[in-house]
């Protein structure tokens, strides 16, 4: 993004937080991803595999509370 780290606060404040705005931002982000990685002439596996990898990571994060009982040591 063309937003500097110091300007994050102002940038977030300027975002459109109405329901319409939030939905439209999700829609636009989705379309940006599609247009960049999928609707291209020579797309690779990256477009699909990034989605799958992020799905894997997200599901791990959500099920961490259940997985942490399989840990080998109690204190790290």
């Amino acid at each position, binding site marked *: 993004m063309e*937003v500097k780290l110091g300007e994050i606060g102002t940038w977030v404040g300027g975002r459109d937080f109405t329901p319409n705005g939030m939905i439209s931002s999700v829609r636009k982000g989705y379309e940006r991803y599609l247009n*960049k990685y999928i609707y291209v002439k020579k797309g690779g596996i*990256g477009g699909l595999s990034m989605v799958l990898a992020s799905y894997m990571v997200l599901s791990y994060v959500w099920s961490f509370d259940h997985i942490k009982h399989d840990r080998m040591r109690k204190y790290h």
Partner: protein
Amino acid sequence: MLSRVIAVSASGLKSSAPLGAGLVQASRSLHTSSPSLAPVPPLPEGGKVRHGIVPEEFFQLLYPKTGATGPYMLGTGLSVWLLSKELYVINHETVAAITVGTVIVLAVKKFGPSFASAMDKMEEEKSAWIEDVKDQAMVCYADAIEEEKKEQWRVEGRSMLFDAKRNNVSMLLETNYRERLHHAKHEVKRRLDYQLALQHLKVRMEKEHMVNWVEKNVVSSITAQQEQESIVKCISDLNVLAKNIQAKATA
């Protein structure tokens, strides 16, 4: 942090962009401007992705500060930290993940290129078909333009045709007019000739009548005695003439 990066880049939420270093995309405005009706530009190469899961922009982001191996060191350190703090727990699922991951990676590496080329060929055929349609349409339109130009050229000639027709009509009118003029003159002359002949006739008849009347009067005024005397005189004149001629003939 890196997990959030990947999650963000995959789901594409714009609001978490600042920390989403992976979203440092080149300022390419793909399909964000208002659609123009001009020919659609061809699709670009597409975003580059390294090792299948990390977008190239992440590497570009870290390159100024840490060079080429920066992201790899970051990945190594991150994985070591995850394992040592057991934030990533190694259990039976890890084995399954490794197995399945290997199979998938090998399958992609083996069948990727052929699949990609087959897809490309299909795309090529489709676009060639559409191009063909477009070309045929263009040919049709070019022909139509030629025909139109020919029609316009013909229209230019039409004005000459109308001129010729107008000439014809004016000639007819002229002829008709002259004919009628001649006819009128002829009729007038006829009437005038009639009047002239009438006058001549009148004069002639008067003259003849007068001559006849004078003759009649003269003849009626000759008495019988004068007639006798004139006859005797004529005979004696004739005798003298005959004597003269006889004398001339013998002399």
